[in-house]
Every structure is written in structure tokens, then in C-alpha cells.
């Protein structure tokens, strides 16, 4: 065995949270290994034990400042079962309003603020311009559109749950307040403009995907199963529904599974080099059972989008990729289709007076266990709690969206490292190719460190003996 050289990309940047990638290269510069490490541990699942269950929805959202609403909602859905309630119609509408508000802001943030500079300027373009600041200077109209889309989503959250980040909204059994009439009217007046921007965002993402179609189609593309929620009628539903699984060719593996079924559906493996676990479909085993979640999975899993503009956009996407695409860069287009859906869904919900009055909470016979599942911006999210008669949590398990994409992200960076780095002198621009692949998944490394801490994202290249060749830290020149 010859010496292997290690290169680390650390910290990963323009992603949410902390991670690193390590690469191991032999003397000829061939890539032997590429790994995405989550290097932080926070231990939420452990320290939530012993806390009163009713504080859980506001506590666990602090896993993540980008999609706190996902955790607030998913915890509340799990705890709906513990309080024995079925949230009343108004509560469900208000929860859906929060969810679409967060989908809009989170998708806008990822595409415009974080990822678009790679696509607009080039993967190996000038590191000092390849960011939001460069975007503002060279494409001010695009930057402003992103800022305003995100702002609208954040303002909806502020109105429904008190703050833009880490407010209070969903509670076990329902929600804690209605939307104010004047806030509703203000949003209704502005939402048509938001839809117009969202249509432009879809067009932009499509253009940037197609401009270099040959390369983009197989950049980091590794076939896998797909997992996500769909409504009973097969339409996309991000808040509720049954779990559907497809194989890499798009054949149905299962459909209509409920949240409680996750225990027989998914197993998780621990690997010594990451705090992020590796989930897989138990029936297929760890080698063949890994899967993708998130916009790319969802847009291809559902039979249709429930809103007209997004459905038209979905059809164009499916026509552009006959069969199933596994291209990470196609995530961006799919993500903007969901952003358009979120804008349309906000308009639909805002027209419903159920947001303004009606029962907010329902409770019934207490249970000791609750499992909730939701489609967060980054994919399927599962919360599982057990609660004692004294109201204290006795067990907590969280499978977050980014964890569901763990194997998929590792496969993508391995593929990109082999294709673009093998035998080449490693440059900052080449290392950014690896990050571009990770970024496409919009990983939330904050969430993924829930086990205990945060996730720093670093890439390391290791030579044939496992020695760190060099830490290819970018942007330090």
C-alpha cells in the first residue's frame, strides 16, 4: 500500500451548519476516498429526556435557525398523538400557512443567497466574488428578488408565530393563536407579486440548469431510491400524507405508509467517522437501501402538484428528464418549483377565513407515545417521543432531513472527486466542485448535528496510507 495524501475542505461554506470533506489521494493523484464528516454533536435527543413534553416544540426548533418551523411542526404533530387530539381545521390551516411561509424563505435563501453564485459565475470562478456580495454587485435584480422572496416568507412566520426565527406557533393538539385580519389583508395584497417572482425564479433555475446540460446531468449523479410524503390522492403534500418510496428507475417500492411505520421501514447505521448516522430502507439493506429525500425526490415522487403554476412547472421538469433524474444539480430547479408551489399555497390559504377564527386546540385520551413526520424544506423529517404520566419525556428519536441524504451526499462527492480531481493538481476551484455537489442537496448541517452539537462540513483528501495529504482549505489565500 502506498502513501495516501489527505486533503480537507474545511469548513464547508455557503451551506447551513458546519461540515468538512476529506479526500484521500494516492501518488498518482487518484482519489481513493471522499467523505463528508459531520464533526459536531449536540445531544438534543438525550437532553430532551426529562423535560416536560409541552415545551418540546419550542425547544427542539433550536436545532436549526433556518428551518425551525419544521421542527416546531413535526414535534407538535408527534405530540398531537400524546395529547390525544386531532387539530381542528383552523389549526391545520395555520400550521400549513407557517409551513409554506418557511418553505418560501428557506428555498429562497438556499438558491439565491448561497447556491446561485456557483451557477451564475462558474464553479471555479473568483473566490472573492463567488458569493452573495458578488451577486448584489453583478446581478442586483436577481439578488433583490431573492431578498424579497425570503422576506415575505419570514414576515408570514412573524405574523403567525410571533418571531421570524424561534417563535411559538404549533402546540400539542393545535396552534396558539389566529392570524390578525390586517396582517392577512396585507399579505393577500402582496402575494401576486410574490408569485410573479417565484415564476421568474423557476425560469432562472431552469435556465441555469440547462445552460450546461451535458455536464450538469451527470455531475455527481448516483442512482438511488427516493423517499417522501405524498397526499392520499398522489399530489405533493409537504405537511401530511403517506410515505412513498420509489426505486432508482421510478418503480413503486411502497406507498401510503404512516409515520408509525418508520420503525419497520428505516434502520440507521453508525460509522466511526461522522456524527451523522446513515439511514437506509431495512428491506433493501444498507448497500442498496439508501435513498434521496428533498425537492428532487418529491418532484419526482408525486403524481402532480396541487397548485396550477407549480404543476405546469413540474410537467416541464419531468419532460426535460425522461424517467428519473438523480442529478444533484437538478435539485435547484426542483427546489424553485416547490418555492412556486409555496407561493401559490400561501395565496390559497390566505383566502381562507379559517385563519382568522375557529377552534385552535383539541385534546382527548392521553397516550404515551407519538410519532410525527413532515416534509421539511430539505426532506422527510421524523420526530418520535415517549412521554410518562408525569408529562416528562422519557425517550426521543429524531431523523432529520439532511441525515436522510447522508449516503447520497457521500456518493455525490465521491463521484465528483473521481471525475474532476483524479490525476489533477488540486486547486481551489476544483475543490469547490466538491462543495457544489454537497450544496445542491441544501444540507442543513445544523440539524444533522442534533445528536449532539453542530455539524462542521470539511472535505479532506487522504493519501493511500490514510495520511492527510494536504488540507485544501479554500479561500485562505
Amino acid at each position, binding site marked *: 500500500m502506498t502513501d495516501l495524501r489527505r486533503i480537507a475542505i*474545511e*469548513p464547508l*461554506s*455557503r*451551506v*447551513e451548519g458546519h461540515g468538512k470533506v*476529506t479526500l484521500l489521494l494516492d501518488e498518482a493523484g487518484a482519489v481513493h476516498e471522499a467523505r463528508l*464528516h459531520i*464533526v*459536531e*454533536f*449536540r*445531544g438534543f*435527543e*438525550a*437532553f430532551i429526556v426529562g423535560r416536560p413534553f409541552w415545551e418540546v416544540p419550542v425547544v427542539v426548533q*433550536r*436545532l*436549526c*435557525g*433556518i428551518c425551525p418551523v419544521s421542527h416546531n411542526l413535526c414535534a407538535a404533530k408527534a405530540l398531537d398523538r400524546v395529547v390525544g387530539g386531532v387539530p381542528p381545521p383552523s389549526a391545520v390551516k395555520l400550521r400549513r400557512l407557517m409551513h409554506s411561509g418557511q418553505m418560501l424563505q428557506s428555498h429562497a*435563501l438556499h438558491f439565491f*443567497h*448561497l447556491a446561485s453564485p456557483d451557477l451564475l459565475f462558474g464553479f471555479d470562478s473568483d473566490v*472573492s466574488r*463567488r*458569493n*452573495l*456580495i458578488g451577486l448584489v454587485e453583478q446581478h442586483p435584480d436577481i*439578488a*433583490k428578488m431573492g*431578498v424579497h422572496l*425570503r*422576506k415575505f416568507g419570514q414576515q408570514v412566520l412573524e405574523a403567525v408565530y410571533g*418571531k*421570524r*426565527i*424561534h417563535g411559538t406557533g404549533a402546540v400539542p393538539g393545535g396552534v396558539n393563536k389566529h392570524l390578525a385580519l390586517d396582517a392577512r389583508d396585507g399579505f393577500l395584497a402582496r402575494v401576486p407579486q410574490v408569485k410573479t417572482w417565484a415564476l421568474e425564479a423557476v425560469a432562472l433555475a431552469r435556465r441555469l440548469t440547462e445552460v450546461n446540460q451535458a455536464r450538469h446531468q451527470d455531475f455527481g449523479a448516483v442512482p438511488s431510491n427516493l423517499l417522501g410524503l405524498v397526499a392520499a390522492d398522489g399530489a405533493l403534500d409537504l405537511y401530511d400524507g403517506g410515505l412513498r418510496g420509489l426505486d432508482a428507475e421510478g418503480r413503486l417500492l411502497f406507498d401510503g405508509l404512516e409515520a408509525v411505520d418508520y*420503525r419497520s421501514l428505516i*434502520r*440507521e*447505521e*453508525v*460509522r*466511526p*467517522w*461522522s456524527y451523522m448516522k446513515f439511514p437506509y430502507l431495512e428491506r433493501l439493506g*444498507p448497500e442498496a437501501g439508501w435513498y434521496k429525500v428533498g425537492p428532487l425526490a418529491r418532484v419526482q415522487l408525486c403524481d402532480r402538484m396541487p397548485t396550477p403554476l407549480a404543476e405546469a412547472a413540474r410537467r416541464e421538469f419531468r419532460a426535460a428528464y425522461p424517467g428519473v433524474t438523480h442529478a444533484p444539480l437538478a435539485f435547484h430547479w426542483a427546489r424553485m418549483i416547490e418555492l412556486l408551489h409555496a407561493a401559490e399555497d400561501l395565496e390559497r390559504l390566505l383566502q381562507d377565513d379559517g385563519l382568522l377564527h375557529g377552534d385552535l386546540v383539541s385534546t382527548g385520551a392521553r397516550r404515551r407515545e407519538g410519532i410525527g413526520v413532515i416534509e421539511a424544506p430539505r426532506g422527510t423529517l421524523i420526530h418520535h417521543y415517549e412521554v410518562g404520566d408525569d408529562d416528562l419525556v422519557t425517550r426521543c*428519536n429524531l431523523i432529520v432531513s439532511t441525515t436522510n441524504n447522508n449516503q447520497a451526499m457521500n456518493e455525490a462527492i465521491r463521484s465528483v472527486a473521481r471525475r474532476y480531481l483524479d490525476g489533477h493538481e488540486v486547486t481551489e476551484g476544483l475543490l*469547490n466542485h466538491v462543495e457544489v455537489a454537497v450544496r445542491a442537496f441544501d444540507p442543513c448541517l*445544523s440539524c444533522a448535528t442534533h*445528536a*449532539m*452539537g*453542530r455539524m*462542521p462540513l470539511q472535505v*479532506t483528501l487522504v493519501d493511500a496510507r490514510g495520511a492527510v495529504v494536504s488540507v485544501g*482549505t479554500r*479561500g*485562505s489565500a
Partner: protein
Amino acid sequence: MTGKVKLATTSLAGCFGCHMSFLDIDERILPLLERVTFDRSPLTDVKHASACDVGLVEGGVCNEDNLHVLTEFRAQCKVLVAVGACAINGGLPAQRNQFDVKDLLHTVYVAEPGLSRRAVPTDAELPRLFDKVRPVHEFVQVDYFLPGCPPPADAFWAFLTALLDGRAPTLPRGVVRYD
């Protein structure tokens, strides 16, 4: 030279909510960018801070990597600001301080029933965890504290514009939050 103020930001053991709240200044980011440039930040691909005027730190210190980044950051920033509950007092992640970290790791990576391969991750790539999550001022000198979980966007705005105008930063009453 641009004559712009150089700003760096970093996240230690935090949730990125403080960074998101900073972005909640919305379109005010445009006039801000006329007066500041960004150095190391999760928003740029600058991985290590060089000499900066102002550094914003989100999150407490939970492992040796956090401490390393914080020390480097402090050395490069003329003015260091601890942003948010996690940086100021450890915040929610410090809830783990009442437990032995080994027990927590065991609960998550060994005891959890849904695991097929179980073992606490120990690879050399993973930084050593500290037994407690600690606020940044226990390790380095901090010049300002912006409270809140997260501090509201208006707190970032009031603080930064005062600094840029050469005024002593004060926070209007309504933007001092502790939730």
C-alpha cells in the same frame, strides 16, 4: 483599498439562527454592502479570517475545533461581538452540561433501538468534545454582547450602523430580547 469596514462572521456551537436573523435586515443588506466587505463568513468561501475590523460570533464552545476557530477569529478581529444566547451563555446546547457527555453519546449511538451498527464515533477526523458547552467570553475577550435567541434583525442593524458611524452602540429598548 476600498475604505470599507471589514466584517467577519462565524458560527461555533449554534444553530445558524443568529446568522439568519442578521439576514433578516432584508433589503438593508444593499446599503450595508456599500459600507462593509465580508471576510470569513458562512456566506463566503473565505475559510480563514484575515485582519478584520469587526467579528460576529454565533454559538458557544463545545469542542476543540470551536476553540481553535474562536482563538484565530479573536486574533484577527479588532472588535469581537458575541451574538445570541449560545455565544453569551452557552444557550440551549449547554443543556447537555448537566449530563456526562459519554452517557449522551451512548444514548444516541448505542442505546437507540433503530440502529443496525452501533458504536460511538471516534475517528480522528472528529474533534474532541469538551465535557461542557461554554460561552465564548470564558476563552477570549469579548467587546460587545448582542442578546437574544436570536437577536432581532433590528438589533444587528442598530449595532452595526452605530459602529460604522463611529458612535458608541446602544440598543433601543424594543430590540433587546432574551427569547
